[in-house]
């Protein structure tokens, strides 16, 4: 066997591996879309669940996820973007900066269920927020921080140094340069990072298990200190905890969750590629 035949076999093996990676992804999406689509309708999305969740809609879970995502965004965007600005524009390569980077790597690696335990210990019990929107949002916000910080830092670093130098040379202060020149240029990248971070928050179940999620609560939350249903937890409940659940409701819920996450993914991709093409530098 000569080396060109070896090469042909090698390349075939590589494409086969790629195929083995991609096909199941398509299978997951196709099976959920095909079996879930017939559950989807106006009523499914806007009605309260009835008869122990075996009929009716998933409205409170949709609203709950929306509120949680909003709460997460309010907390994690300022801290995340601020942290990224510090790392990209102010921090020098000191021992402290390395400690910050290590902390970010570590935060990104902590299992989601451990965030759940932490949220239970600090927010629910110690600060006595109870199982509430506040406790859940804060827990999710800390979990999404590392994603936002690292993507936002990347976006800030991608802005050429010359932009900053020119701003200095015109008499601007460092902060003016960041606010008026660097931040606007990095904004699309930052937005992409924020969406990718929030996408993680939308889909996570483990951190909200003990901090906010309600098993069955066919009403909307009354206040920030109220529990709520949420889409991922609802899917977990109806697929494992409730016997005799109609299949189309399970697949319908999975489809709604998948659709939310994939459309956020799509928006992030579109923003990124649109601005990358328009960028002048």
């Amino acid at each position: 066997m000569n080396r060109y035949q070896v090469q042909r076999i090698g390349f075939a093996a590589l494409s086969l591996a790629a195929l083995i990676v991609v096909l199941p992804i398509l299978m997951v999406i196709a099976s959920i879309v095909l079996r879930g689509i017939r559950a989807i309708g106006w009523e499914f999305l806007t009605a309260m669940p009835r008869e122990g969740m075996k009929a009716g809609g998933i409205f409170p879970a949709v609203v709950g996820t929306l509120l949680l995502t909003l709460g997460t965004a309010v907390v994690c965007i300022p801290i995340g973007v601020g942290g990224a600005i510090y790392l990209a524009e102010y921090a020098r390569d000191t021992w402290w900066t390395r400690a910050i980077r290590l902390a970010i790597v570590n935060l990104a690696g902590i299992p989601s269920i451990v965030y759940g335990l932490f949220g239970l210990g600090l927010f629910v019990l110690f600060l006595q927020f109870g199982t509430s929107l506040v406790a859940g949002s804060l827990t999710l916000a800390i979990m999404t921080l590392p994603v936002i910080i690292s993507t936002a830092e990347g976006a800030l670093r991608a802005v050429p140094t010359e932009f900053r130098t020119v701003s200095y040379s015109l008499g601007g202060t460092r902060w003016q340069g960041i606010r008026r020149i660097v931040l606007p240029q990095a904004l699309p990248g930052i937005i992409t990072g924020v969406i990718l971070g929030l996408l993680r928050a939308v889909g996570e179940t483990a951190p909200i298990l003990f901090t906010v999620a309600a098993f069955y609560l066919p009403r909307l939350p009354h206040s920030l200190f109220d529990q709520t249903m949420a889409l991922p937890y609802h899917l977990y409940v109806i697929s494992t905890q409730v016997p005799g659940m109609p299949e189309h409701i399970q697949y319908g819920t999975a489809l709604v969750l998948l659709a939310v996450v994939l459309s956020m993914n799509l928006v992030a991709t579109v923003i990124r590629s649109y601005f990358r093409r328009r960028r002048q530098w």
Partner: protein
Amino acid sequence: MSDSKKTHWGEFVVEAGIRVMGFSTIGFVLLIFSFLLREGVPVFLKVSPANFLGVRWYPTFGLFGMLPLILGSMLVTVVAVTIALPLGVATAVFVREVAPNWAREILKPMIEVLAGIPSVVLGFFGMTIVAPMVRETLGVPTGLTAFAGALILAYMSLPTIISVAEDALDAVPNSYRDAALAMGATQWQTIWRVVVPAARSGIVTAVMLGMGRAIGETMAVMMVTGNAARMPLSLNALFRPVRTMTATIAAEMGEVARGSVHYHALFGIGIALFVLTFLVNLTAARVIFTKRRKGGLR
């Protein structure tokens, strides 16, 4: 004059705020660890070491042996990484070195999509479709086994492994490839003998991070592995139900009384998980930091 002084003060406040946010991540890590300790350490005082290092986890009888849970997590993780490593590295090599543009345009977004699918959705898919498939093809009594869990976990860690391995391949200077090709090597020989060995340390990082991801995964594992806290000792344990550390916390925390031994024991498992993933990520980060010190070349 007073106006410029005002902006100066505003700026000082803003910059101080940014500094605080920069350092906040360290604070969060310390906060998380201290609260795990606060709630988890009592178990090590109330329960004898022989008990929590034992082989039986029956909290209702006061037996808190973590060994079956730790071994369960290890079994599922090791099998998942064994599946994901060759697939992930091969896909990364394909995307970076071989694939035509159109294939790359399809593959990269698909992998991002996989990274975005919530674990509970993959768990649901695993329960309803993968587990029955495993049961029928292997003829085991239930499909909810360690093997089904490992399969799902393998796919969940693929995006991490692929993207880190791809970065590692990217970091190999093009002059290496050019030199190999100029000496008459085929493209395959170049990849196999030059590029992949040069990217070795990055690929190790990829595996470590993928492993960290797999150890910590909760929902999908809980839904698919069948959750029996048995010691996975023989080889066919792979095709039996198994219980991981993460799934134990998720399944039991909802029902325990606050402040009971069982409650503290679950936080104890949390401490173990925190330390484990910290070590894994520290090792991975060390590889990253040393690489940076030496510059682009290894």
